[in-house]
């Protein structure tokens, strides 16, 4: 009997009688990180990393029963040793390690190996059974060095500002927005935040984070804003809200921006290839380094990637059908 299986509610540990990132209401939910496809409403009690707690309260309400844990801290749940390890995806994101009867299972959740300068960097956790995402699990996804991307981004903002244009960056409110705010050159101009981004930033103050940028308030005289940077979630695209920043140039920050079609479809001026997920090389690196013999591939290109893992790495690899979003972009 496998320690972890998928049922209609989510990823289930029978021995421990708990779920990881369930999509239907259950008694005990271990939450890998604060994105809404992994952290859903209606669980009896939640267990997540300390830094995810304020995000959970912001999104699901303050009355939820939440237990915050630290990276490396070991919980014993009905004999299963459960611990959280940095996933490097967003603030508070964790890989969930389960150990029972000398067998180690690892749920990678969403993770990335390349440090983003904001979230606690990924740590490789050796295991026997590894459940990995495959959002960018095709060889066409090879992300550039983020330092180069931010250099490009700063140069672009500077050029826009010098021509009197505002710069609108579309980045998810939780994760990429904080990365962008950390790496942009604050000397270029003012930074304004869409409410969705500002809400996240405010929630993270409690756990010791602080980010640049001012919340856009009703009192702001928008026509006087020139050469500024505006950080907004992707859902702001094609809304009347954008028009108030005219004249502006707009860019999308996403791993999908690697593909020309995806960028052109959105009708943005620029696409910055920035992702909080592993690219092809990183996924392969993680799989090899965990030394796992059994790989379970979830959300993304699970068919192709599991076949590749079988053929290339000679490992047992199967598809785990989950309801986690493979769209990287989160709907808010």
């Amino acid at each position, binding site marked *: 009997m496998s320690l972890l299986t998928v049922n209609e509610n989510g990823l289930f540990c029978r021995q421990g009688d708990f779920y990881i990132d369930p999509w239907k209401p259950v008694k005990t939910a271990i939450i890998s990180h604060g994105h809404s496809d992994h952290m859903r409403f209606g669980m009896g009690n939640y267990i997540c990393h300390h830094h995810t707690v304020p995000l959970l309260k912001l999104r699901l309400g303050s009355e939820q029963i939440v237990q915050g844990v630290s990276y490396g801290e070991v919980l014993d749940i009905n004999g299963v040793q459960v611990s959280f390890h940095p996933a490097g995806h967003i603030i508070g994101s964790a890989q969930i390690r389960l150990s029972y009867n000398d067998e180690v299972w690892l749920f990678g959740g969403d993770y990335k190996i390349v440090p983003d300068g904001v979230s606690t960097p990924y740590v490789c956790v050796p295991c026997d059974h590894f459940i990995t995402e495959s959002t960018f699990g*095709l*060889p*066409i*996804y*090879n992300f550039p060095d983020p330092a180069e991307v931010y250099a490009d981004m700063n140069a672009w903002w500077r050029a826009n500002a010098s021509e009197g244009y505002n710069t609108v960056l579309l980045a998810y409110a939780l994760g990429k927005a904080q990365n962008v705010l950390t790496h942009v050159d604050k000397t270029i101009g003012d930074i304004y935040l869409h409410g969705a981004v500002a809400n996240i930033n405010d929630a993270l103050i409690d756990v010791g984070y602080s980010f640049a940028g001012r919340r856009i308030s009703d009192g702001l005289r928008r026509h006087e804003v020139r050469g500024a940077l505006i950080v907004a979630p992707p859902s702001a695209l094609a809304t009347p809200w954008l028009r108030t920043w005219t004249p502006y140039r707009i860019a999308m920050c996403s791993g999908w921006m*690697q*593909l*020309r*079609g*995806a960028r*052109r*479809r959105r*009708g943005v*001026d*620029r696409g910055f290839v920035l992702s909080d997920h592993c690219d092809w*090389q990183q996924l392969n690196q993680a799989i090899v380094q965990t030394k796992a013999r059994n790989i379970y591939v979830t959300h993304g*290109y699970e068919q*192709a990637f599991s*076949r*590749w893992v079988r*053929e290339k790495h000679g490992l047992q690899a199967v598809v785990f059908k989950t309801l986690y979003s493979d769209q990287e972009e989160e709907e808010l």
Partner: protein
Amino acid sequence: MIDFVRMFEAIDTTTKTSAKVDAVLTYLTLAREEDKVWAIAILMGNKPKRPVKTADLRLWAAAAAGIPLWLLEESYYIVGDLAETLTHVMPPRKVTAIPVDLSLFQVFTDVSHMRLASPDEQQDIVLRYWQMLDSTALFVFNKFLTGNFRVGVSRKLVVRAVAKYTALDEATVEHRLMGKWNPFEESMESLFNPDLQSQKHFLPYPFYLAYPLEDDVDALGPIDEWILEPKLDGIRGQLVLRAGELFVWSRGEDLMTDKFVEFQPLKDILPPGTVIDGEIIPWKNGAPLDFAVMQTRIGRKNISKKALESAPLVMVCYDLLEWDGEDIRTKPLWERRGKLITLLADFPVSDVLKLSQQLAFDDWSAAAAYRREARRYLAEGIMLKRKDSHYEVGRKRGGWWKWKTDPMTIDAVLIYAQSGHGRRANLFTDYTFAVWDQGELVPFAKAYSGLTDKELLQIDRWIKQNTIEKFGPVRSVKPILVFELAFEGIQRSTRHKSGVALRFPRILRWRQDKPASEANTREDLEQFLVKAGSGNSTAR
């Protein structure tokens, strides 16, 4: 090469026409002389034929990337563009930088050399470039090797930039760039120096194209200021007679002289210095035949005697652009038409050249009645041309309008979906539709266009959640969604399962109000066939 790549990047990162024109203009100002004609040719879609098999490119790329071929194919489905797929699968590596002096001319010399080379030699050349190039430069090079290079600039836009650069007017530039010219044989001088133009007696004039009429027809003023003609469904073409030779050009700027042999005798009958604009169409017993008959003629290299007999072509002439060696495009239409009538009467050409019929109506409502019933008159609608209109260059509003009859429509069920290409890559946007036939759904049409971006995204999500089976890039979906399809014509076909082939099928709207059970049936399609009168005429 580097400056061309920079130009491509500039074009690709803006949606503004003026910025694109500037990018092309900047390139022309900076580029090497021998590269300029190449850049113009590529931007206008006048690229040399594909020099290597795409199957070989896939193999070489998979080997270079260290991935199996099936994974490259999977990736291609997602990217939706082969050149881009080949670019992205190359693992991050140290490339030898592009030599600054690598010219576009040199690249195309190598590319066209490949056409005649052995597969091994081809592979050597391709790998040498792949080693030298990365990111955008690699993508641009791969685009040179594969299909059409659509870079987001229209022909009009290139013409505008070239006009600025050469200080010629746009109509002149448009004219000089007609046809499929060979960049190896041209220079900026040979293309644009007016003294050398007389040697290009084969060139057609740029076609004047009509916009569809959107406003109320009454807004056009008195009907007697207009010449009205049946809009026929053939191939728009120009007959160019100069210096004892005849050239037949299609509206797609393909030279069709050898395919449309019926017109050959004209070169001994009509005086040189004559250019006629009209509709080339199969014609028998005084009436046009269905467009499907035309399709048996185009696309064939050798025209059999049988094809000549079953699909004889004529040109229904509606305009005269050059007479007696003089360009008369700026004379009013009534005057040009007058000369055309004289010409067709004076010379014994009536077997292959017909005068386009001028429709006489007392008022617009009589014209509207004809339009509604146009199919009965074997027309797709009415052309409206102002009597005093000039023959303009390209698509222009005002002087000419096309007023097509309403399309036929049918409600059909979505049963298969395939991801699109380019802007629609990785989105399920190419659909196969079915109608009911004795309780079963039979596929009868594919359609790609007609929905808004928002609807496409919505349907894409629905498809991903309602997939029954996946076959490579194609998915079968639960037969639930109903769409109203419009089409311009219908013929019997032995090649399609449903027994019919539609002309220009497209999606009119998503019938969210209709359950699949209420979609149309195959009998309904039969009714259209009977009405269209082609129930018994088989295409092949």
